């Protein structure tokens, strides 16, 4: 059984039909990259997967937590969100808290983890992203790349079953991109289930088990990245690859 599975997923923004029946299965440990043109619905799809956007039809299931249109109350949402971590393009760290406190907060508040234990978790997670020595630094004292790594640590501290990453290197200066991609590569290597949207095509081809090409709110083509790049099955994906260079 897949770890993450969506079926008949539909989303409207007003009259704009943004997701048009998405069926997506992600196995445990799989790394899935979603690509597509601007406005094709990539972010919207990721955001529905942890309830940041409501859905208008269909069902989302993650590790036994189910979200349906008419059964998406606050507790169902929180249940889903405990299993799905998210990292954002703009980091979104809490500016009034140190890096360590940023990572500790959710375990303490949401899981009622005792402070001492939460601090141990935070130190472990910061070490995992290579920032053990930045525990007491505040977000505005960190580079963009460091902030994004803290944001990854913050998501990991809740032990999510799957991590969503929406263009997490797009807001970074070019020289800081690699340190963040390095962390993602390492997570993939450790068997973390990842669903990401990225424009770093080389990176996507290298780490992904599955590539998903979205076009006009649908999954237009998907498969193994090497195979898809070598031999696009649809004209739209071929033209998308063409537009990359």
């Amino acid at each position: 059984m897949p770890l993450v599975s969506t079926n008949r997923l539909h989303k409207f923004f007003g009259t704009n039909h943004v997701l048009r029946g998405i069926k997506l299965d992600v196995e445990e440990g799989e790394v899935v990259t979603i690509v597509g043109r601007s406005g094709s619905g990539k972010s919207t799809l990721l955001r529905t997967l942890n309830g940041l956007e409501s859905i208008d039809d269909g069902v989302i299931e993650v590790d036994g937590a189910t979200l349906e249109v008419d059964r998406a109350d606050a507790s169902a949402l929180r249940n889903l969100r405990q299993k799905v971590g998210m990292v954002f393009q703009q980091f979104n760290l809490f500016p009034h808290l140190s890096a360590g406190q940023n990572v500790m907060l959710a375990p303490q508040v949401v899981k009622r983890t005792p402070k001492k234990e939460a601090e141990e978790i935070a130190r472990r997670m910061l070490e995992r992203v290579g920032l053990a020595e930045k525990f007491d630094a505040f977000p505005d004292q960190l580079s963009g790349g460091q902030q994004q790594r803290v944001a990854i640590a913050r998501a990991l501290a809740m032990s999510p079953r799957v991590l969503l990453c929406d263009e997490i290197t797009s807001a970074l200066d070019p020289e800081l991109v690699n340190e963040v991609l390095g962390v993602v590569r390492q997570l993939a290597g450790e068997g973390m289930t990842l669903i990401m949207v990225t424009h770093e095509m080389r990176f996507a081809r290298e780490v992904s088990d599955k590539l998903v090409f979205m076009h006009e709110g649908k999954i237009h083509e998907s498969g193994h990245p090497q195979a898809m790049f070598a031999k696009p099955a649809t004209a739209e994906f071929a033209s998308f690859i063409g537009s990359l260079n």
Partner: protein
Amino acid sequence: MAYHFDFTFVPDYAGMLAQGVAYTLGLTVVGGTLGILIGIGGAVSRTWNVRPFGPLYGYYVELFRNTPFLVQLFLIFFGLPSLGIKLAEWQAAILAMVLNLGAYSTEIIRAGLQATPRGQVEAADSLAFTRWQVFLHVMLRPALRKVWPALSSQVVITMLGSSVCSQISAEELTFVANFIQSRNFRAFETYFLTTAMYFGLALLVRQAMHAIGRHLIVRRPSR
């Protein structure tokens, strides 16, 4: 004809003046603390339109921001007894100050909450925070930090406004000044001194608010 300034009355009334200052400071500390707490409650109720508090707060804020403080005070002190609620002067004075400051700080703090970047709320949402947890742990401190200077000014304004509580014989600083002036007829000297004392109090309150802001709200470890 030159006017001869005469401040020789001051030592005789030093004790009274000190009591007036203490009274005014007491009103300010209690009124400021409770007023800001009411403001936090009002800000969150209005931001999320929590029923029934959100709409109730809306009426309350409009009422108190669009009527004179003196009339609010009279309504509480002279009006409420008709409804069977009889308050001592100091109780009426504190209540009026709390309600007045509560109304203003509701709007000030609300502006701070609304300035929370959406991304921070979404980050907390994505970590499975409840709405209250988002408010308490993510929004409140940065919001207070942002509006603390405005809030401090409002507390000072409220303190200065407390001088009208002399009208219901609450024995704060202006009441004492009026009393002294009625005894010595030295209006200029008495009110000059009172002005200087209010000025000093305002500086003190501002400093205190600044210190509270630094310790309670920023709380950054020194490094």
